[in-house]
């Protein structure tokens, strides 16, 4: 196994509160890693540091052996780090196809990649509809399709199943299994069913630190994790 991403003593504070507090984290190529933790644990801030949306205060980030700590976000995307937004962030006035094309346009192969990706996520039949008119579940899929169209080495999904129906969650799980064959996945997720079914390993965060890390079985039986979640 080769290391894809590593953070060392990664720290970021907001107004005196350490949202991410000296996190050492390692992600191996090819795995599906779930990042869980109570609200306010620093999960979104942590992945925002990785993808460059939030500047790093101290510590460092190594991606494929290269220090990317101070690289601007768009350059990290070009290195292969794709981020899909927690709050759906698509172009409502464009069609589904045009949305996905924007992801491939920078490299000039938008038409082909949009067709491929839309087929993969099962949106090909509504490619010409306006994205803003779609049902919420489909909009989430457009969001993921834009991430996939970047052909990422690392796909970061921030609460992708939030607000999806049970059937849509099932479809999402099989989609991610498919995607994971070619891409490493870092997944922030609250739905434990999704986490347990998909994750190879789970990282639990609490108050800006890593509380525990292990296989789904290890995390399930971890006392500290149960306390953090149940407050017992």
């Amino acid at each position: 196994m080769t290391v894809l991403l590593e953070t060392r003593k990664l720290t970021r504070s907001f107004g005196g509160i350490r949202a991410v507090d000296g996190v050492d984290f390692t992600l191996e190529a090819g795995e599906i890693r779930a990042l869980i933790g109570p609200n306010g644990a620093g999960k979104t801030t942590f992945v925002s540091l990785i993808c460059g949306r939030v500047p790093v205060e101290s510590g460092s980030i190594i991606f494929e052996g290269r220090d990317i700590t101070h690289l601007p976000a768009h350059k990290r995307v070009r290195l292969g780090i794709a981020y899909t937004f927690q709050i759906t962030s698509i172009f409502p006035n464009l069609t589904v196809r045009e949305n996905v094309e924007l992801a491939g346009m920078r490299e000039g192969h938008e038409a082909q990649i949009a067709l491929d990706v839309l087929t993969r996520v099962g949106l090909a039949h509504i490619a010409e509809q306006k994205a803003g008119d779609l049902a919420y579940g489909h909009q989430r899929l457009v969001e993921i399709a834009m991430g996939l169209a970047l052909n990422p080495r690392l796909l970061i999904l921030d609460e992708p199943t939030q607000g999806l129906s049970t059937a849509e969650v099932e479809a999402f799980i099989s989609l991610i299994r498919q995607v994971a064959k070619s891409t490493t996945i870092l997944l922030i997720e609250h739905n434990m069913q999704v986490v347990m079914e998909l994750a190879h390993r789970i990282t639990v965060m609490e108050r800006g630190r890593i509380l525990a890390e292990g296989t789904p079985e290890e995390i399930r039986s971890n006392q500290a994790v149960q306390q953090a979640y149940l407050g017992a």
Partner: protein
Amino acid sequence: MTGPANRKTLALHLAFLAGLAALDFVLPDYHHGVLARVMVLAVFAMGYNIAFGYTGLLSLGHAMFFAAGLYGAALPIYHLGWSVWPSLATGVVAGLALAVIVAALALRTAGVAFMIVTLMFSQVFHLTTLYFTTYTRGEEGLVLPQNVRRLAFPGGEISLASADTRYWIAFILFAAVLLFTLALVRSRFGRALVAIRENEERMRMLGYDVFASKLAAMAVSGTISAAAGAAYAVLFGYAGSGFASIQYSILPLLWVLLGGAATVLGPFAGTLIMFYLIDTASSHTTANLLVVGVALILLILYFPKGIMGTIRDKWVRWLP
């Protein structure tokens, strides 16, 4: 973008340009002169539209780019005795350079702050033209005599002071910028600009260098505005610091809003209508700006997307 829609769009715009060209032969003198002036000012509006309409950068300082072109062309002719070609080039390059410098600084801000920063830079430019009144003659302005406003070609030269040449030079510039805008907004770069306007953060996370794209948009916008200014100086033979005042930053905004932001034909429609609105109103009342104000309020209330924007929304969806 499908083939037939492309052809339809191109056909429409070429037909529009052909119509404008034909007007040269039928318009009475007064309207002929007005139209030449409107075409030059519409070039300014089209330049503004690239920043404001397509990229969503609400600049309140575009007068400085227009004036950079104006003075960049007029000063060398007036003081150094340059001929028209190199002076035009100087004007355009001055606008480009100014746009890059101002944008590199102003684009560190966004929204209201961007409006204020561009406004301040433009005010500095305006005051600079007044400070150097010795060279610019301030509000009074420089008048370029007819005998120096001659455009040299291999095989002869033409006078820019004649109404007919003026119309044709204005038309050529207008047509070139119109077709350029059309190509730009349909290009990958143009589509990226619109997407940045709609959702900047998303574009950043799709790997686009948003700052560089906006800077490029401002550079193109400033250069076109300067081209309009340079053409204005040599065609109408006048360069005054009034063109650097805030009024000339607000006017292109109003022209574009009236005609329809982010439409190719909107800037021309807006400039033309506004010109005649002011013209007609001022022949009946001294309160002509009141008429303009009422017209703008009605526009914002009933046609917030401007004339071409409304036409596009309601009837002609493929209009660029």
